[in-house]
């Protein structure tokens, strides 16, 4: 509840979420997508006009007034449902999936099967832990922590 300042929370949350997407959803090889990459991809898909500068402002929390279409396009680019920006419970679950996706990136795992239905965010975190243990057992270095 550190950031529970009325009027400031939504802005912080939106910027934090946009920032989180940039940091966790990265191309297979290389660093983060650039603001230009995102703007261009949204334009190419026939989405709303959204400038690289505006994306930067959203990420930094300097602007917090995107339209619904902007957020949908941004969610679409990063492969998450638009609910990510509107629904905190959904965002928590989606963050857990993104964390698992990152754990699986370059993990020495060829196949996974499990017995479960409707995995909770917590179960997903356990699977992240497992994938990291597999990494360790296979003698690979620990992943840089990209989900902080």
């Amino acid at each position, binding site marked *: 509840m550190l950031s529970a300042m009325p009027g400031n929370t939504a802005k912080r949350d939106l910027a934090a979420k946009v920032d989180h997407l940039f940091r966790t959803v990265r191309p297979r090889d290389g660093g983060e997508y650039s603001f230009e990459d995102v703007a261009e991809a949204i334009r190419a898909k026939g989405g709303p006009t959204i400038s690289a500068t505006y994306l930067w402002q959203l990420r930094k929390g300097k602007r917090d007034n995107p339209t619904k279409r902007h957020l949908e396009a941004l969610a679409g680019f990063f492969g998450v449902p638009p609910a990510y920006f509107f629904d905190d419970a959904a965002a928590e679950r989606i963050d857990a999936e993104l964390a698992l996706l990152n754990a699986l990136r370059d993990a020495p795992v060829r196949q996974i*099967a499990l017995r479960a239905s409707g995995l909770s965010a917590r179960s997903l975190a356990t699977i992240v832990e497992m994938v990291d243990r597999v990494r360790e057992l296979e003698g690979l270095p620990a992943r840089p922590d990209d989900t902080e």
Partner: protein
Amino acid sequence: MVTGARRLRRRCAALVRDLPMPVPFDARTLCEQVAAQRGRPIRLMPMEGLSGVCGVWVATATSDLIFYEQVTTPPHQEHIILHELGHLLCDHHRSPDALGLPVEQLLPSLDPELVQRVLGRAGYTSEEEREAELLASMIRERARSHGGGTLTDRLHAALEDQGDG
């Protein structure tokens, strides 16, 4: 798809028939024997707090790992291990989905295209798929050249021809 399902059933029946049966029966011993048979270690990995998951099978390039909940009764543990061993035995000869991951189960909210973009396809199961492909063609070839073989071989050949035609 019917032939696909039949094929899978037949394969599983054959797999079970070929399984070693430790006496007295013990899931951990069975895992050891299966590992020896396949020439791939199976590591049993007890874990705490797998709530809602029970067990997970992970295949790497060199080994199989079965994670199972340790804070439960021994019969339940055995059941979980056998279930995961079942995945391991079936999936080895099946071409899994391109990523080898139950994506819909693990990452249901994410755009499948994103998952593919981040994880890539190459290297994940291409080897596995080649192996499955080779196996299938070898079985077909054998069934044809023998003309007879076992009843299963003949059934297999007939169904394969039908399926391909």
